[in-house]
């Protein structure tokens, strides 16, 4: 996403990232805190950003290619913040994210999200993405890169979103 001001970035091998579940929580809490300090209500902002970011990280934790670099970046474009995940990708992962992209485009995405929230059995694997799109009103783009990597970007304006 050119034109955005990068605020903070964490980068590591995907294997290292996916070796420990707590990374999702730690990275989302840390990054959210870092980028929120100059928002009007920093604690509230960090809380919201951390919640959205954690959902995306949990998805990347479960769905990624076997090796390569994993990068999570937050940048700012005016009132909005953009979360970008850049991850290695194999054929199965690509299918998973392309299907997600299709569902996110549907006009009934809010209903999809609400029924996924309460679906019986195991959770819809796209649930977190649906939530970020619906509850955080994020504009999500999913772009394959070279056939073996993928860029997922979610742009959201969280200030005042709680009221």
């Amino acid at each position, binding site marked *: 996403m050119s034109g955005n001001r990068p605020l903070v970035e964490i980068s590591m091998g995907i294997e290292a990232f996916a070796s420990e*579940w707590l990374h999702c929580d730690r990275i989302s809490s840390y990054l959210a805190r870092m980028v929120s300090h100059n928002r009007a209500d920093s*604690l*509230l902002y960090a*809380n*919201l950003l951390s*919640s959205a970011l954690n959902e995306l990280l949990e998805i990347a934790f479960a769905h990624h290619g076997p090796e390569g670099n994993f990068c999570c970046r937050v940048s700012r474009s005016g009132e909005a913040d953009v979360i970008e995940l850049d991850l290695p990708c194999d054929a199965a992962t690509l299918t998973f994210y392309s299907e997600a992209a299709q569902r996110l485009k549907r006009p009934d995405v809010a209903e999809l999200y609400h029924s996924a929230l*309460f679906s019986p059995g195991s959770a819809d694997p796209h649930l977190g993405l649906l939530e970020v799109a619906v509850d955080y009103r994020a504009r999500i783009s999913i772009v394959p890169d070279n056939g073996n990597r993928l860029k997922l970007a979610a742009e959201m304006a969280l200030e005042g979103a709680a009221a």
Partner: protein
Amino acid sequence: MSLDRSYQASFNENNQEFVIAGKLRPRNEAEIRPLAEALDAALGKVRGTFYLNVKRLARLNNVAFRVITNLVSQVCDKRSDLRVEVVTSSVMGWSTRKFLPLASRLPNVSVNEYDQDFYPGQSYLEEGGFIPILRAQTKLTWTHERHVLPRHGLRPGMAMADVCCGIGDFAVLVQKEFSPASIIALDHSRTSLDYARKVAADFGVSNIEYVYGDASEMILEDSQFDFVTCRHSLQVFDKPELILKELYRICKPGGRVYVTNEKNSHCLGEPRADSIQWTYNEVARLWADYKMDIELGPKSRRFLIDAGFEDIKMDSFMVTNLDGDPQGFADIIQSWENVYAGEMARDRGDSPEFVAKFRQGFQDHIYAALHPKGYAGWPIWAASGRKPL
């Protein structure tokens, strides 16, 4: 400043309330099985209304959300007699929105953002009407407080919190005169906080962080601050001890908590002393009718001791018309009259005759303040205690 590391859960049978606090981001259901079992057992014991309190749940992922809501759905499907009320807080930002779909799905579930309605006087304090009062007050109290604060332990370089900061002018004054390392200023009025941020920006003050929060359930970590202030605010809560408990919790051991409060019935003036006294006795009654105690000042020693503080220090001072421009004092009184004899008296249903007499006392107090030979006063008690090491 950071949030709680993990979750806590507890069930209180007496009020049928299950409280989950902290952070819930498990990888799978198995990780939070103890929580699920406790919740299931609690739901099984309850008749009538079950309260699921997530006011202080800072983080929740979908794995945990589904575990909780599945249990609630199962029980609600079987028991149409049961009502479940999910109690959220606007402070967390996400939780009301997250739980609302559960209420749309299940007829016996409701979601209640509790802090919209904590205590009877709240709307008067949080909406615009109070801002002029606070602004007029701090200007004059500061002439006294700047001398009092060092005796209560405020020093440069301290980490400070101002809880119930209102429009934040006190934090700015402290910042300028005492150079603390940092100030976190918390309030539950968005209007006041917006105002506070604007004032700080206008004055180019940058190391005050204005935070929206609930003083009785702060999301600040334990033992962080050297000096915690809470001014003119214990007196607005029907349970001041809950706030003190939180002030105690966020204060470092060895640090001090400083509170100021009034005893409005002791406001005085000459001439026209009797009318003035009558009105301020009525102010005390009016506040009591809204479950607030504007007479709390001299009780602060007891409150601090009961909350576990030691080395209690107490001062009282009288803000008067001689502290500066008498018009400044008169402005405070006028702002009181506007709110107390205005919306608060009206909403209590007071008669026009009562309101007229009530207003007269304020006007007489202003008369005394502006009279060339007059004297008008407003007494305040400042008290502080040390959190034991």
